[in-house]
């Protein structure tokens, strides 16, 4: 038992584990992760793709190839930290706890990582102004407005979602969400993830019934496909006017493009109306692991600061002597 503990807390084991992690991380970064199985069959030779899939290298960070070594690493680091800390306590003269605090920070981060792995949930939604989603605990999040700010060169400067939090249909909070500035709702955080322009065209059939067609949708016609490609701003004199764009596709090749206005005909349909909503892409994340990870990062940082100050002090003393 003592031999086992001595081995488990040894520097040699630490070096072996770190070396293994280096090589396995390199491979895991080169091999695309979490792709469909036929992806690997298509890009790698038969035997190689078989090895990748059978060894679970295609989902390395949730496989035993990662989980077992990282668990052994955790045990090694824990035993080493305890052993080293006890030696430092018993030492007479200047003690150096910097590395112990660093190691403690890493251990806490690993625990936080495990909690995150087990508890994290992430939902995603595109919301237009007025749209809402239900949140746990009888709460609702409603998007009051969504602004896309642009620079002078028309590139995106910022997306700002103004949201209302409702409980039992009563607004209890109004706040803004931007990239890098998430909204905290207790243990939930809401992030500005992306945006989308939701283009929809309403086509009138010959019997006056309306058909709602979203961007990317369409219909078949004589061996080709007519697809609603979205809305385009066309210069009409001095003004920009939104027009409806339909494309005709023959298998994988576009063979025709039509730019239409309201009341224009396309086959047996007439363009009745269109809408162009800006949608805010919001991520809703619950992750209990963030608290120990934050703690671990602070401890890790303090350990590095201690080690840095001690290193500078040692260098200064060596220079003076």
């Amino acid at each position, binding site marked *: 038992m003592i031999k086992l503990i001595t081995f488990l807390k040894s520097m040699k084991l630490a070096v072996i584990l770190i070396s293994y992690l280096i090589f396995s991380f390199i491979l895991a970064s080169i091999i695309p992760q979490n792709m469909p199985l036929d992806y690997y069959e298509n890009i790698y030779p038969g035997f190689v793709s078989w090895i990748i899939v059978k060894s679970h290298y295609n989902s390395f960070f949730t496989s035993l190839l990662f989980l077992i070594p990282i668990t052994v690493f955790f045990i090694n680091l824990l035993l080493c930290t305890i052993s080293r800390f006890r030696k430092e306590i018993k030492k007479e003269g200047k003690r150096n706890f910097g590395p112990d605090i660093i190691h403690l920070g890493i251990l806490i981060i690993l625990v936080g990582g495990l909690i995150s792995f087990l508890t994290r949930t992430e939902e995603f939604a595109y919301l237009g102004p007025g749209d809402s989603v239900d949140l746990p605990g009888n709460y609702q999040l409603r998007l009051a407005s969504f602004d896309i700010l642009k620079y002078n060169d028309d590139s995106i400067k910022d997306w700002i979602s103004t949201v209302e939090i409702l409980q039992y249909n009563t607004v209890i909070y109004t706040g803004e969400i*931007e990239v890098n500035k998430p909204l905290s709702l207790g243990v939930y955080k809401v992030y500005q993830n992306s945006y989308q322009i939701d283009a929809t065209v309403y086509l009138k059939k010959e019997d006056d019934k309306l058909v709602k067609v979203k961007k990317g949708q369409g219909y078949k016609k004589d061996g080709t496909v007519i697809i609603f490609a979205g809305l385009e701003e066309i210069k009409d004199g001095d003004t920009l006017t939104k027009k409806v764009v339909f494309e005709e596709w023959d298998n994988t090749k576009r063979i025709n493009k039509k730019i239409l206005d309201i009341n224009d005909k396309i086959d047996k349909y007439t363009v009745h109306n269109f809408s162009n909503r800006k949608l805010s892409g919001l*991520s809703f994340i619950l992750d209990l692991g963030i608290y120990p990870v934050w703690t671990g990062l602070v401890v890790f940082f303090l350990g*590095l600061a201690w080690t840095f100050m001690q*290193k500078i002090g040692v260098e200064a003393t060596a220079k003076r002597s």
Partner: protein
Amino acid sequence: MMSTFALILFITSLFIQITFIFIKIGNIKNIAYYFLLVISGILLAELTMRSIAIKFVALTNIYESLLFFSAIICLLIFIFNNKAKEMAHPYINLIGTVIAFTLFALTSSPIASDVIKPPVPALQSHWLILHVSFSFIGESFFVLGFGAAIMYLFSKNEERKVHIDKLMYTAITLGYIIFTVGALIFGAVWAQFAWGRFWAWDPKETFALITWLIYTLYLHFRFIKKIDNKITAIIVIVGFLMTIFTFFGVNFLTSSVHSYK
């Protein structure tokens, strides 16, 4: 205009340093290091002007990153040569200068567009300044460590090897601490604010971690008494090569949320 002046100073500094290796004329090499200080000032001034133009710290693309990295390496060589003369070595300074010059030269290549563009929403964060600047400052120390490792492997003088090994250890230790804070801690914190997760095994993140693990291996190898210092020197060289791959290779060879060209 500023870039041309920096280029002239770089070439002159390299010429003086190389000449000094063959013909030791007084303290002429110190002029070369003062040139590096001026180069650093020029590059940082250009970054300052770009920052004023975009109303944000100009560290948002490869061009600006290359300028900053080159500037800090030059500054570090100057500081080491002036403040830590007992550790400075002309060959190591020359290797560092060559690397700084190469990074500067790459700003004129197709991989680095010098177009001044304001930052995209994801980059509009104070954490960008901390994350990127600390990472490159740490990596600048790795450049010195790399130079020391090369010298260690080629040196036959045992006394000089002890001296070079000390420089290597000092450079890597300081760089390791700063790189850890910048690349890993500040990077993880920023990722949490931007994307809702500290870590996602993104290729850039993973290769930065690999780089960190290699230098961790170096620091821990030094505790194993029977290890030949040649092995630790080789680890330092591999660590630096991984640093460069993390910077360039990941941007261009993999798909990463960190690919800001």
